């Protein structure tokens, strides 16, 4: 696992089914915290791993995915400083 940066907000979308994990992530990036420098998205919905990253990258974010435990992933979105 990558070293966790301090105080990166976590959006917990566990329990959500497609396309809501992606839509909620987009809303977080566009409306709730526009221009936020980093966001971690926690999901247990495997298809979200291929829908969230491209949408975030369109918005200029870099992306890494960590498998935090069986069946749970943390999608780390960040803007280069």
């Amino acid at each position, binding site marked *: *696992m*990558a070293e966790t940066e301090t105080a990166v*907000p*976590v*959006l*917990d979308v*566990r*329990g*959500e*089914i*497609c*396309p*809501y994990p992606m*839509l*909620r992530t*987009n*809303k*977080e990036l566009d409306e*709730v*915290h526009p221009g936020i420098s980093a*966001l971690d998205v*926690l999901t*247990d*919905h*495997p*298809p979200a*791993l*291929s*829908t969230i*990253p*491209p*949408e975030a*990258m*369109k918005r200029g974010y870099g*992306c*890494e*995915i*960590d*498998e935090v*435990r*069986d*069946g*749970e*992933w943390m999608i780390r979105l960040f803007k280069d400083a």
Partner: protein
Amino acid sequence: MTAQPVASTRRFSLPESVHIAVLLVPIAIYLLALGGGVSLATFFAVGSAVGFTLQRARLCFVSGFRDLFMLHQGRTLRGLIVGLAVGTIGFAMVMGTIIPDAFAGRTPEDAHILPVGLATVAGGLLFGVGMVLAGGCVSGSLYRMGEGYVASWVSMAGVMIGLYALNQTWNFWWDLTISTAPRVWFPTTIGYTGSIVLTFALLAAAYVATLWWERKQAFVANVPIRRAQPAPPASVADDVRLALRGVFRREWSPLTGGVVLSMLNILLFIKYRPLGVVGEISRWANDLGASAGIPMAIQKGLDGLAGCAAAVTEGGSWFTDGFMLNIGIIVGAFVAAVLAREFRLRIPRQPQRYFQSLGGGVIMGYGAGLGLGCTLGAFYSAIPSLALNGWVYALAMAGGALIGTRIIRRLA
């Protein structure tokens, strides 16, 4: 909804020893089913394999269409298109065995050659809207039920309500359009070879169209998942472990999933009939309605309809071939999810999600009843049946999915 700290609750993970023991579930059901007859056991086995395949490849018909419109991603849909091509060849061989002379005017009765008309279009449109709202089609909801998605159980309840409503209004639709709608089977006019060529040309066109659409807003990102890496294989045992990992732990591509699904479809058709799940769910809805004191009136014309027209409970037994197939899909997906360590109870925390799942399910159920099938029966089994209805349904469903994505953007 703002970002919140991770809650440590609602985590549900099984201990190691249970992973393999989960295989006892399908084995026990299979043996019990054998007692009731070979066909029950076979339908259960094929259903389990279908559920396993759908889970492993995360083969979601909804994402095939929705991701194309929403994200300009066509990878899933292309997997399905290649699967349809494989299915077309297999189905043509099976049908060619049943009806050697395609020009003689007879059609293979178990193939999904259905009346094509207003009901096909309306059914496909409703189905497309509903499946996007619900976040899963009918077969998709079945396999996600096995993966532990509570939302999919809610969707399935909605599907049954929708099917019940359609069955109550079935005779209206039958008199209005279905009874007079033609059944168009390509081989009757252009033979098997011509039909295969036509189907392949249409599939190729659809394949290219997804590439073109993707290019219009090219953005394909493939982010590797970081996880604890095992040591490189150093023995035969390691190689075997790696191979097993490829089947049971790592995600299959949509292409693999689409092709395997079609192979299973062909095998089931060789022995019994093509895949379809809706007719059986329709029977559940009717039987449950009858138990609640509202028996279904006689539905006209069901005898002459193949595919996913409402099944009728025969001999009072709930345990039919279709029942075993559907239960098999749930069990197969459950087994696949547990072995992949992906099983968990997923409980939506936003209340409106339950309404969307239920509402989407109702719309989808009504559409599936009207269009005589879901993504499996009216699409994945219909296009290889070399029948026009499969294409009409697919186009209507795509249109419905487009409308659904518009709606969902507002709801999010």
